[in-house]
């Protein structure tokens, strides 16, 4: 039936679209109501982490700012005291700002961080209505303290938190 082939093919096309119209379930995810899980290595908004005792991991070394290819990170360090201790060791980040308009989510800051203080999380809902809101200060980036008495800054025993970079094993991802 070679003669009728063009017409039959047209009909087969119509049948295919009608089948998907009638029977195929839609693949749409209704975004604000239902959200898809991001991939395990997704690079979203940055998070500044704390140790389990509530002290900040960030020691204000500015290595992330140095590594940042788009110059999105600004860090200003100050001295810790045992009366007002933010992080272990000598210094902490008194100012930590990330400009989300510049950030390209490359993850170099993560790699540069000696204390694993900054990681790229899974939050991608970064819309804002004011350009000033694009600059995320430390308060927005820092993860909440485990409890109120374990927050930073806090008064600690002298001579305990002397080491700014904790002893870490090599990562074993594989």
């Amino acid at each position, binding site marked *: 039936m070679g*003669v009728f082939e063009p017409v039959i093919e047209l009909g087969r096309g119509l049948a295919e679209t009608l089948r998907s119209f009638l029977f195929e379930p839609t*693949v749409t995810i209704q975004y604000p109501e239902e959200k898809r899980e991001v991939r395990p290595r997704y690079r979203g908004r940055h998070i500044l982490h704390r140790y389990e005792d509530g002290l900040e991991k960030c020691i204000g070394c500015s290595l992330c700012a140095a590594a940042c290819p788009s110059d999105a990170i600004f860090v200003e360090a100050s001295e810790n005291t045992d009366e007002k201790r933010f992080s272990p060791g000598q210094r902490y980040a008194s100012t930590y700002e990330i400009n989300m308009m510049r950030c390209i989510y490359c993850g170099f800051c993560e790699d540069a961080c000696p204390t694993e203080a900054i990681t790229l999380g899974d939050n991608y809902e970064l819309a804002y209505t004011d350009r000033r809101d694009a600059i995320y200060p430390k308060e927005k980036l820092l993860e909440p303290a485990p409890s109120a008495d374990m927050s930073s800054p806090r008064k600690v025993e002298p001579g305990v938190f002397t080491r700014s970079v904790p002893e870490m094993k090599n990562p074993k991802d594989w």
Partner: protein
Amino acid sequence: MDWTIWLEWVIKGLVLCLVLLVGFAYLTWYERRALARIQVRVGPNRAGYQGLLQPIADAVKLIFKEELTPSRVYKVAFLLAPVLTVVPSLVLAAVIPLGTSFNLFGRTITLYVANLNVGVLYLTSIASIAVYGIVLAGWSSNNKYAMLGGVRATAQMISYELSLGLCFATAVVMGNSMNLNEIVNAQSAVLFNLNLDFIKIPVSSWNFLIQPVGALVFLIVTLAEVNRAPFDMPEAEQELTAGYHSEYSGMKFALFFMAEYQKMIVISMIAATLFFGGYLQPFSAALPNAAPWLGWLSYLTVQKTPLLGPVYLLLKVIVLLFGMIWIRATWPRIRYDRLMSFGWKILLPLSFAVAFITATGILLAQEFENQLYLYSIPVLSIISALVAVVFIYRDLRRKSHGRI
């Protein structure tokens, strides 16, 4: 003349225009939803229940959009073109019967705006005016893409209008009148009785049963007339950056958009009127008498409840529109030389054959007073359609072998 007649006309005309405007808005919603569903998406479902307020949101957006007029356009034609495109698509619907008539305040109100005795001629002539708008838009835009779109639209519409006219002629011959009301009335007659063992189902003589090929050709040609896929060469986004309306924005663009969708609606109404029984109910008026347990169906006939006429017409239009959307979702755009050769070398001879076969069959049936001659019409026209299919195949083969 009574002032109430004027009032009635004004109200009917206004209602018709409003129906077409709302219909246009909701056709965009319908198309987007159906197209999305075919493509395994959801489509607009945010504004209102199931996205039913989406057309209103779109309208608000289009009204408030900035309207640019490029500096080098020929302003008069540039401003006139959208108007020339929209108005024919609105006034086209005036002669289409939406139903019979009903009594209100002691007056008989007919469900059509005008009852022209040359309704079919009116349709063909008004439908052709719209091409002026398109070609003026393309020319006055001072843009080569728009110009090409306009030229393509003109060539395409002129080519396909011949076949369209012959399909109109076929319907005129079958209805024995140019009045659309009488064409619809002729289709309410019983064509034959379908004999099942427990019931005899009378089948109305809708024209597409007598002339299936004519109806098919009409549907294909209307796709070309309203510049729909697969014949949307004049506004091919990929090659012409939207063709004749590239330079239009804001409300002027909306007018072109409106004209296109209103023409879709109106031409579906015309197709329903000419070939699918117009405002008649989908079953024959004699069906309620066929069996006692079918008596309740008589309340669903337009003869008993005239207000159901527009509803039936609307249902038919929705089905025909779905066909257009379905085809848009399925078939790719046809190449321009093939579009022309399909129009001139296949559709035009086929519609000539269809018109000739129909006229001959009806003439024979009248001369020899034997209804059996009517059956020659579908048989012969299907044979001619098969011949046309063979020619399509030869055409494609010749092109693929590189010979002309």
